[in-house]
């Protein structure tokens, strides 16, 4: 039997209360970033749900991998053999070039390029929220993943880690509206910033002067200036340059090199601390001195 008269809050009061609470949450989460650490815990809490939602897809992949013809396998195998031959030949060249590069770098007194630690990871879910571009991968804090870590596929930069859970983490793609990555044109070294457009096949470059030497088809690679992404990984290819003089800046758009709409396996990178030629020497630590001067002048 339901009570006819009760002293509970009316639905209107509840709604106002909940909306106020939501507004507070939005403010604290977006403007102040107060939930950055708890986001990791929340991510770990919901990861069972994500793994479960992924099982039908995994079953389909398993089925398609197991139900294939012998002919197809033989063809694939042949293709791999040819590829391996090509790659091993390229590898020989690469070792020579690496040695040469290291020698030249020592001559220039630049820091040597060290080998980057890598880890393969698989996507477990793709976000269906059309307002932001994110994916969830099956590596988390247990594997040493950290926030802001660069994520690449076999062709180029894909994004960076946004939130880390224990067994899964969230990747923000370079095409997301809130993402920007420092790049340079491979041909001439001009630096640009590639901002996400909210579309999977577009990056926008803002504030490019009309006189900039940028052409359709130019490859853009990471410049390593932000300190987050390692240098010289391909990011995108310029697809349109509109140098309309009536606008304050040229309109430059590019298309990501990585096939962001059909990624499955990704690589996580652990770049070593100093990798940019442009950055100051590791020993030159100027900050404390500056502080001291300010203190003295007071």
């Amino acid at each position, binding site marked *: 039997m*339901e009570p006819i008269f009760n002293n509970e809050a009316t*639905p209107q009061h*509840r*709604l106002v209360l*909940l*909306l106020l*609470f*939501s*507004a*507070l*949450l*939005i403010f604290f*989460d*977006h403007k102040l970033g107060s*939930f950055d650490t708890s*986001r990791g815990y*929340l*991510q770990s*809490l*919901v990861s069972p*749900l*994500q793994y*479960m*939602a*992924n099982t*039908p*897809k995994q079953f389909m992949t398993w089925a398609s991998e197991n139900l294939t013809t012998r002919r197809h396998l033989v063809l694939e195998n042949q293709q791999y053999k040819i590829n391996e031959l090509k790659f091993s030949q390229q590898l020989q060249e690469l070792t020579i070039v690496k040695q040469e590069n290291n020698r030249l770098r020592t001559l220039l007194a630049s820091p040597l390029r060290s080998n980057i630690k890598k880890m393969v990871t698989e*996507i477990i*879910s*793709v*976000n*269906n*929220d*059309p*307002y*932001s571009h*994110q994916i969830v991968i099956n590596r988390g804090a247990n594997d040493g993943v950290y926030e802001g870590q660069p994520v690449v596929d076999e062709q180029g930069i894909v994004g960076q880690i*946004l*939130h880390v859970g224990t067994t899964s983490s*969230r990747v923000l793609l370079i095409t997301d*509206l*809130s993402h920007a990555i420092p790049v340079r044109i491979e041909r001439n070294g001009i630096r640009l910033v590639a901002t996400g457009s*909210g579309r999977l096949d577009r990056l926008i470059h803002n504030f490019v002067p009309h006189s900039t030497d940028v052409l359709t088809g130019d490859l853009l690679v990471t410049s390593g200036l932000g300190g987050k992404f390692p240098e010289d990984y391909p990011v995108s290819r310029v697809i349109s340059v509109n140098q309309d003089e009536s606008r304050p800046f040229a309109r430059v758009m590019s298309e990501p090199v990585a096939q962001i*709409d*059909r990624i499955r396996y990704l690589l996580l990178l652990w770049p070593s601390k100093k990798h940019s030629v442009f950055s100051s020497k590791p020993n030159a630590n100027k900050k404390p001195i500056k502080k001291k001067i300010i203190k003295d002048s007071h």
Partner: protein
Amino acid sequence: MFAHNGILIIFTLLLALMLSIMPMPITVDAFRPDWVLIVTIYWSMALPNKVNIFTAWILGFILDVLLGSVLGVHAASMAVVVYISAANYQKIRNFSLWQQALIVAVLGALYNLLTFWMEHFITNVPFLISYLYPVLTTLLVWPWAFLILRKIRRHFTIH
């Protein structure tokens, strides 16, 4: 919530959450119905004493975590939409299946628009008509979801 087979309500809601994050081919993805909204509206109309706007808010919050959007966006729009459906549950219950589907589609449109407005306010996302595609599929899915959920409710005598 747990008495009288109420645990099944939670089960259906979890299933809806899973359906809403299941990976799909990119062409179908834009047409994914608002599963969580459909199931929550059904339960809020069938058992308003068990599923209320608090439940809706919490589901929206979980959706926020699952989708990685700013916390509170989906929660707020879920609460508003379920408030409307729960306030008029006695009227909506008496409509025929297709009339109900139309009303749920309008509620779904409101849900998607509210989410878009908040996202637009936060990050300036441009409006694409594809944000409203889920309304169409929600309209088509509602009668089936309604029949299945009613069958579950009657078979397990959830009340």
